């Protein structure tokens, strides 16, 4: 059963549609409120499977046209029964239809290997819970900037189909300002900054 709560509102070109995935009632309510306050259109589901069904990737076609359902960002909890957030991330990044959608993983646990594997698998960001409004607002700004650049790239007939691969090379600042280090014990040099430039960067250490 797909448990979906969808906000119906006019989707302006600047309004992000965020799909939030979390098995916790409390966390779903909180993330939904945070996103609405940030003027995002929100769909909240309780499991990875429901998320895939909503995205039309679970063998079922969406009942509405894909454009209306267009999701600009997926925020998923890591620890969920059945399909974990990591597994959901892999499925999304493994889908030609969906891999362009940025995915952010959330967890109450700050585990380096977990963060690394999510970033390597293509997660845009790894947020440590509990979520704050500033987390969501920074995320939104970052995604909107990325969308603008994508539109420009598409308009100029860019050959690259990899989402934001060019942007990653020229947008270090937004990523840096996006990251905050609440509850983090990071080494001074995040791993992925040292290797492949096309890798997404993990959260950088900043003091509050």
């Amino acid at each position, binding site marked *: 059963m797909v448990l979906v709560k969808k906000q119906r509102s006019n989707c302006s070109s600047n309004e992000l549609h965020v799909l939030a995935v979390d098995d*916790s009632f409390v966390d779903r309510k909180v993330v939904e409120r945070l996103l609405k306050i940030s003027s995002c259109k929100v769909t909240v589901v309780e499991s990875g499977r429901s998320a895939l069904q909503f995205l039309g990737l679970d063998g079922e076609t969406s009942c509405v046209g894909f454009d209306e359902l267009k999701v600009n960002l997926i925020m998923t909890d890591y620890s969920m029964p059945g399909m974990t957030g990591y597994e959901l991330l892999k499925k999304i990044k493994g889908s030609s239809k969906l891999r362009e959608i940025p995915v952010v993983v959330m967890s109450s646990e700050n585990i380096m290997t977990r963060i690394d594997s999510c970033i390597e698998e293509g997660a845009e960001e790894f947020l440590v*819970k*509990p979520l704050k409004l500033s987390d969501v607002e920074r995320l939104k700004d970052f995604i909107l900037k990325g969308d603008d650049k994508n539109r420009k790239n598409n308009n100029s007939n860019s050959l690259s189909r990899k989402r934001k691969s060019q942007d990653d090379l020229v947008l270090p600042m937004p990523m840096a300002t996006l990251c905050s280090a609440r509850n983090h014990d990071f080494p001074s040099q995040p791993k992925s900054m040292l290797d492949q430039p096309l890798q997404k960067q993990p959260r950088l250490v900043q003091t509050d």
Partner: protein
Amino acid sequence: MQKQLAKMKQSLFDQGYLDEQFIQLEDLQDDANPNFVEEVVTLYYRDSVRLVQNIEQALEKNPLDFSKLEGYMHQFKGSSSSFGAKKVKTECTQFREYCRAGNAEGCKRTFQELKKEYATLKKKLEVYFQLARQAGPVEKACRPK
């Protein structure tokens, strides 16, 4: 009445029942959603009843399934932390440490403490929310859009 409310909130913070996350959530309230935090906490109570039952049942087994217990407590800790229930969260953390150490007595003892903290917080928040409803919505600073 706003003063009384602020005083009570300060006291809850000073005594360590709540942390900053509670304020984060209160800041999300507005005229259209004046009782958002109370709604979150109500959901939390409902969720917690189920978790407490599961944990109690699991604690009666012999030997204990520490992995299962840790899983329940992970959920409990997560939701407690999401609205700033500091003392409850601390007990959850302690419980998980006992799970990892395979310490059954530690788990059982900590669980009793956890239930006490939970019950105390619940009582205090009931008074707080009642006062908040009477005091009416507070003027919120403008949020950046």
